[in-house]
């Protein structure tokens, strides 16, 4: 009897140990989430307060990605440098990383992962010796804290600009909403919203407010936890007054005619399995990260009762955000499409090591020529709207997609709000599209 009890206890203890996540060292956590806790990156030629222009850009070339170097060298843009600041992610996301990441494993094929419940899947420093390091970084981006568990861009202004003349051809005013169904850490419920019979990972809902010809257009993208499954996408057209199902495979389609592909959203908006991912190294790069309230603001585009104003755009054609850039630890990752008919040959992603957002992308066409340059400015949540303070969300605050070959750009000006009230799960339903239409 005693023997039986001992065996039972031993088996139970073994099961308990197996059920716990493997431990991630605190050193790994600190390096991943607080890279600037002990020292800020320094470069002899890059000083906060300086302006980089065509005259001095060569002296700081190693801290710029190739596209930004080209723009500044050509006189298209002058870059103001700010202090490096820590964009601390929310404690709940860091804690979830401690709790779950030890059990995360890649599957045998790209797009397969197991054990990722919440938090950063692979907090360890990437290694050039690891052939799947790029893929792990892509998963860190996909399951990154990004907009937190839910947020809204409320509203969001997209301007289509002729880069030569500076003429604004179209201004589209929209609302964007983001909601994570799984991998939640901060807003209740976590780690997931139930019921969720199709195992949705994330919903993106877009509602067009202006101009009249596209008013009431709505788009709903439902992304599955299973990366190998394509998104479900629904479109409501105001003049048809009904929800259309979209074939979602054409992720390189120009969204509403802009210079932004659906696949370009947020830096990359597709399946991990659609790309081959390669880690190219770690660099210190000037990134568009700043305190919104200290920037030059656009007094014309948006006015509201909060007194909030959006980021101003300047430079050639008005295609560049008038912000400060800071030196930051950056993972350089290359993605090349699996599909040989994809219109691009590769993207160079400049992933911010602390937040795993992608503030800079360069897209190359099939011939290998530079085609598009993506910038998404990140505002520190503690220097933005009061409601965003303490959320730990690096606020997407300004974007620019420059079509270098067409001399055309699309710019985006945000009012980002981290407020679960704005994006309940009912927002991410087909019924919401129909009900929010007219």
């Amino acid at each position: 009897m005693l023997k039986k009890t001992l065996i039972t206890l031993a088996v139970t203890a073994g099961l308990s140990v197996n059920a716990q996540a493997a431990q991630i060292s605190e050193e790994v956590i600190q390096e991943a989430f607080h890279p600037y806790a002990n020292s800020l990156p320094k470069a002899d030629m890059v000083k906060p307060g300086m302006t980089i222009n065509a005259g001095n850009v060569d002296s700081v070339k190693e801290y710029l990605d190739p596209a930004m170097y080209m723009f500044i060298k050509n006189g298209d843009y002058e870059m103001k440098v700010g202090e490096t600041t820590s964009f601390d992610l929310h404690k709940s996301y860091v804690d979830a990383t401690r709790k779950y990441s030890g059990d995360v494993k890649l599957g045998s094929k790209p797009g397969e992962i197991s054990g990722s419940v919440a938090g950063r899947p692979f907090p360890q420093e990437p290694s050039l010796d690891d052939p799947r390091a790029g893929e792990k970084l892509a998963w860190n981006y996909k399951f990154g804290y990004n907009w937190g568990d839910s947020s809204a861009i409320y509203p969001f202004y997209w301007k289509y600009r002729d880069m030569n003349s500076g003429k604004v051809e179209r201004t589209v005013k929209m609302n964007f909403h983001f909601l994570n169904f799984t991998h939640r850490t901060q807003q209740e419920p976590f780690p997931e919203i139930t019921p969720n019979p199709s195992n949705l990972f994330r919903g993106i809902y877009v509602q067009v407010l202006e101009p009249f010809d596209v008013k009431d257009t709505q788009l709903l993208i439902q992304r599955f936890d299973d990366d190998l499954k394509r998104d479900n996408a629904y479109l409501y057209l105001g003049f048809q007054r009904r929800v259309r199902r979209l074939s979602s495979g054409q992720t390189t389609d120009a969204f509403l005619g802009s210079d932004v592909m659906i696949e370009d959203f947020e830096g990359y908006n597709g399946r991990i399995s659609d790309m081959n991912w390669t880690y190219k190294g770690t660099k210190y790069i000037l990134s568009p990260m700043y305190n919104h309230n200290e920037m030059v603001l656009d007094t014309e585009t948006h006015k509201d009762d909060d007194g909030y104003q959006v980021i101003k755009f300047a430079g050639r054609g008005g295609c560049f955000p008038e912000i400060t850039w800071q030196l930051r630890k950056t993972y350089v990752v290359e993605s090349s499409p699996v599909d040989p008919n994809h219109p691009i040959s590769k993207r160079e992603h400049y992933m911010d090591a602390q937040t795993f957002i992608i503030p800079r992308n360069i897209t190359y066409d099939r011939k290998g020529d530079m085609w598009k340059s993506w910038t998404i400015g990140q505002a520190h949540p503690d220097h933005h709207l009061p409601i965003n303070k303490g959320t730990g969300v690096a606020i997407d605050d300004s974007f620019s997609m420059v079509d270098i070959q067409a001399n055309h750009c699309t710019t985006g000006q945000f009012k980002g709000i981290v407020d679960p009230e704005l994006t309940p799960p009912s927002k991410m339903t087909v019924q919401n599209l129909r009900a929010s239409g007219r």
Partner: protein
Amino acid sequence: MTKKITTLNKVAIGVATAIAMSYGPTVSAGEAQWSGYVENATYFRDKKGLSKFRNTAQAEFYKPVESDGWSNVSINGVLRATYDGVYDLNDGEFGKNAGENYLGENWHDNNTASSSAVLNPGVAFPCENDPALCNNLDGYMDQDENDAKFSDFNDELDFIRELYITADKQLANGDIFNVTFGKQQVVWGKTDLFRVLDVVNPVDYSRHNIYDELEDIRIPQWMLTAEWRMGANNIFDDQNLQFIWNIDKFRPHNLGTCGQSYKMVDAGCFFASSIQGGGPYIINDVEEYDWNLKNTQFGVKWEGVYGDATFSLNALHYRQQLPSIHALGAPGDNFGLFDIHFPRVTLLGGAIDYYSMNMDATWRLEVAYTEGEEQPRDTNGYKETDMLRYVIGFDKNKIIPSLGTRSAFLISAQLFGEHILDHEVDMPNDEDNWIATGLFKGFYMNNRLSPQIIVAHDFAAKATAIAPSISFTPDNHWMFNLALNVKTGGDETFPWSVTGGDAGGGQTEPLARFLNGPIGVANQEDEIQFTVRYSF
């Protein structure tokens, strides 16, 4: 038109005026948001000249309203004013003075007249030219020329296209209960161009046959709708249950009065004709359905998302919106004279769409089974028969780099089928018929330049419509659209027993208009169309 303004419409005037004056009856949570457009549509028809010079101003508003216990409360409205100058600028072809040499002159040659015609050509705008005929058609095709010129200004107050209040109630379990009341459009189904389940509102085909967006030609109705949005459960990703109660006085489709530039299957002139030799009018009377509880219409829809499929199940008890002609007598006794009825119909149907990942395409299926509809026939005017209608649709977005744009093209195809369950040989409509449609639409210059082509083919009528167009949107306000609308076919004949029939292949009048359908009967309506719109 002589109808009295209903109480509901009086309320509509009051609310619309209050909104327009920006002092709503309740405490506002925000300013009314206005948008809209002014538009000129100028169309030229082959051999006819100007066929449309329509000037439209439309204003839309949305006014949020504060409420305790309810959320998303708002008053919504669409106001429209239309003036079609074609009746002033081309009054030889269209309007009260337009005349035809024989019935159907606008879509076939004089073969019927030269052989055995027994019907006079239709009277243009009977209420301008023939009071007795106007009296017979009272309540249906009784517009005068001003009603056609200013089609939104009538006793039904159609200038108030929509006016409704909507509100959500958040339930304790997270579900949402919604109530919407007012003059509104309710859209069911998943079909473009044709209607299978989208039958809640009647349609004004006199505006531009079947070719305008349904949003602009549905005739809004006073309705109360209630929805229970249940969201996800352990089986479905989304669910909604909707009840509709159409409390408006019944209105049929507007097929166009004789003398108008667009008359669906030329019914307007057929109904405005009479027996040759001073005989009586074809139409003796139009049955009117007074407003009472028994005459209201109601329906229910359950819809949801299950995996990769979205679906709906629909039921509607309504009134047939196309006219049914009831013969007054047998041969030798009032034969050839008819009353127009709009019988009660019960519809059961459903729709489903499915995204195929392997094909990267969406399939749509929509089915409606109706009980109580009436189909025209030769020897006895009509027969009640069950009907089955269905649409299979295919949609795909495809980037085609060789066509010079990095925006995806929209490729869409549909096959619309109709089956008459109790078919008779003397019905002009085939027991089974199909219409196929195709759409190919592209986008250039950041979607500001958009060419498209729509093709529709009616198999029984052997008739085809081809409509290529190109629209240019230079900025946020202006839009220019240039289009062609070309049709072929309309040559099918059908014997009419009044004239003894025709074993040699039948004749065109009057029943072949049903066989040739809206595309075939419009075979002489080839047009070039230019539209300019300024929106705000």
